[in-house]
């Protein structure tokens, strides 16, 4: 059986499934139950500086997007960092860690942007025997307006500066949590690396308004008729997170920097995808908040089965395996020619492929008597839209034309690998000539 144990920047955990810093990890009661349920690690909900704790709103903290059967697809929150006294959190962290030495316990931190504040908090947490710290440079609401959270994470120079302070005043492994509310995720990752970070974790939540109440005209979640942008998370954000993880994993400047993958991890499959794109482990929140801690059992069994089937002995065999296949558009093979093919035996004759192609694409599907839908290869550009809208899995597939075949659409013979950089239509190629 595959070994799910991971060593992430020296922090060992029996599996790569950590609970992200969030409401589920705000107190001892929850964290003990999470560890009992099987979670490999926990990032304790963000601690603030000494003094009166922050306060939260007393109305709704969460907004949501649902599928038809109330399946939660996306969640947003306007909750702040922990609103419990620092000493209480520190005492509980120490107590939990003492009893779960084999699990990872990371403390998330967010204090004002001055060296003394960071030095002080690092000093205070030393005694807990936690395994590491995660710097919360991500939260987009409430704290950012006070010069913390994403206000730091959006300025690479601040990230570098604070990370350096942390590495100067602590020997603990340091993970820098990145906000996706920026234009190029590589810049803050590079800054974290320059500052001495041992790893980055991403993504934090995305600025969002989940919906608007069309009667009261207030954004959701609504507090006394008003709403504010909150942090979006859950299955809906996974594609955004995957891309950002991949960008860091494949960038020359940050390649090799350990990544803890976060963003809509709901099943073992999601976790495996993050890991294939370079994440050494994953952090989960929304799925646990939706279904409870028990989901980790499915994640463990699923990842284990997958790794066995693939012959992966340890997670290291999986981590980063897809990274070499992430490239830039200009390097994609323009001689990779495919055509949609509809399996008539599987077709249920809904005609969605036809409507999509006829109305919005290339008029490459014919509707014949008896509701028979056939691809017109002379028109098919292989856009894949028919595959995407077909309700029957694998009914429509993209079939590759072999080398030497003639593409009936272009009349061109399928040749060897060739990309845009050498294409005659590329102005920079002409300039070079």
């Amino acid at each position, binding site marked *: 059986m595959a070994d799910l144990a991971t060593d992430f920047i020296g922090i060992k955990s029996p599996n790569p499934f950590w609970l992200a810093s969030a409401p589920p990890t705000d107190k001892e009661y929850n964290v003990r139950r999470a560890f009992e349920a099987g979670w490999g690690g926990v990032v304790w909900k963000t601690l603030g500086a000494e003094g009166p704790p922050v306060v939260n709103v007393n109305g709704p903290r969460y907004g949501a997007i649902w*599928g*038809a*059967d*109330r399946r939660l697809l996306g969640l947003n929150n306007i909750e702040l960092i922990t609103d419990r006294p620092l000493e209480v959190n520190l005492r509980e962290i120490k107590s939990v860690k003492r009893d779960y030495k084999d699990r990872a316990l990371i403390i998330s931190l967010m204090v004002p942007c001055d060296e003394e504040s960071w030095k002080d908090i690092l000093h205070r947490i030393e005694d807990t025997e936690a395994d590491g710290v995660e710097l919360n440079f991500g939260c987009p609401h409430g704290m950012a307006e006070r010069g913390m959270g994403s206000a730091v994470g959006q300025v690479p120079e601040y990230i570098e500066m604070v990370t350096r302070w942390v590495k100067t005043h602590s020997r603990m492994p340091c993970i820098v949590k990145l906000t996706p509310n920026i234009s190029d995720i590589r810049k803050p990752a590079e800054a974290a690396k320059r500052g001495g970070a041992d790893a980055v974790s991403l993504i934090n939540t995305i600025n969002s308004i989940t919906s608007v109440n069309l009667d009261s005209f207030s954004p959701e979640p609504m507090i006394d008729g008003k709403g504010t942008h909150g942090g979006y998370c859950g299955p809906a954000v996974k594609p955004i997170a995957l891309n950002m993880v991949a960008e860091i994993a494949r960038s020359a400047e940050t390649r090799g920097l350990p990544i803890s993958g976060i963003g809509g991890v709901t099943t073992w499959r999601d976790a495996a995808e993050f890991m294939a794109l370079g994440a050494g482990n994953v952090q989960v929140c929304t799925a646990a908040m939706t279904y409870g801690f028990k989901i980790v059992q499915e994640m463990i069994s699923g990842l284990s089965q997958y790794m066995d089937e693939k012959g992966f002995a340890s997670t290291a065999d999986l981590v980063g395996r897809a990274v070499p296949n992430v490239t830039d558009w200009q390097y994609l093979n323009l001689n990779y020619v495919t055509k949609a093919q509809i399996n008539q035996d599987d077709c*249920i*004759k*809904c*005609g*969605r492929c*036809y*409507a999509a192609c006829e109305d919005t694409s290339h008029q490459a599907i014919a*509707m014949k008597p008896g*509701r028979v839908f056939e691809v017109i290869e002379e028109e098919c550009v292989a856009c894949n839209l028919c595959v995407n809208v077909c*309700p*029957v899995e694998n009914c429509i597939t993209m079939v590759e034309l072999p080398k030497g075949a003639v593409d009936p659409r272009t009349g061109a013979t399928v040749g060897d690998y060739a990309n845009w950089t050498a294409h005659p239509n590329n102005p920079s190629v002409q300039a070079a000539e």
Partner: protein
Amino acid sequence: MTHSPLTPGIVSGRLPADRIAGNFADHTPPLDGHEAHVAADRCYFCHDAPCITACPTAIDIPLFIRQIATGTPEAAATTIWTQNILGGMCARVCPTETLCEEACVREAAEGKPVEIGRLQRFATDVAMARGLHPFTRAPRTGKTVAVVGAGPAGLACAHRLAMHGHDVVIYERRAKAGGLNEYGIASYKSTGGFAQKEVDWLLQIGGITVQTGVELGRDVTLDGLLERHDAVFLGIGLGGVNALRAAGEEKTGVANAVDFIAELRQSTDLTTLPVGRDVVVIGGGMTAVDAAVQSKLLGAENVTIVYRRGQEKMSASGYEQEHATASGVRIICNAAPVAVHGNGAVREVEFAYMADTEAGLVPTGETFRLKADQVFKAIGQTLTGVPDGAAVAGGKITGLPARVWAGGDCTAGGEDLTVTAVAQGRDAALAIHAHLSEA
């Protein structure tokens, strides 16, 4: 309770009142809002959807389902009613399993179609509960049209004519409008007086007068109607019932299934409605199933449907047949009645087994008898009261004088379905409107 299912003869009160009430409650309960949302999400919004083609009234089903899915069941109801003004009743009584839902691509994919009928009911119920009637009359044309028969065909015709600004008088021989919706449908399919509510709702369009207790041929003539109106629509249905042509048919206890169903529908207290201990229903259609199942629900001990051909030829759908057998009704096929036995009142029915050969149905020579104290004939209805000047062929009206149209069960292609009658009434109205607009 004085009687039980075992009490001999035709008596009432075989079951306690609470069980009767439960038995005749809504057969298919309505979807609630969340259920409708989930059911609607299953629709694939097919291109040129097969369900639309399968619907005799061509309701834009994917559109109305999408309107439900997006929280506007009122708009969905408008989509439905635009094609089928009796969409509420059709949602309850249509054999969807042989129409829209049979054509649903998810039936092909998973054997489980989108619940189109129940979704249609959801939309129309919501909109009717809100008192919506999203149609208004065009300016009055000054033309008047007589509609004979206030059944589904006549009502659909009248509503569409009224929309176009014509004044309509409906002449109905019975005491209430609604036709088979009111008198001919199993009670558990249309609970809470829905047929009358729907008629009242339909008449909100205005411009329609209903005269009940007026029969064509007795109280009015076609010529008389043509003198007073610019056009006439005949939606007279099928007034007669086929005879068994078996000896002893006249014995006490032998009745028409349609009369039993009508009596049941009009009853205000089903514990007072008598039913036999051993009930035999002869026929293979929806009427046979409705009579048989309701006999069982009233507390009959043994209910048997006997059909002269093979089960696959029964016009009751597979779903209806299953409903019957699940209700405890036995179905015997390939047997035809030859004699009704009994001394004054029916005691037994004798049947001959039949072989379905190329030369037609032929007795095999073997016979059997079923104990019976009540027999319902459900072997088809016949056209009666056809006015002079109309041509009849194959038991249906096939030709009509000038300025006269017809639709519903009295015409060919009626299929004995509410939804088909609605389509024919609506289309006749459009033809009448076109004619009146020319004049």
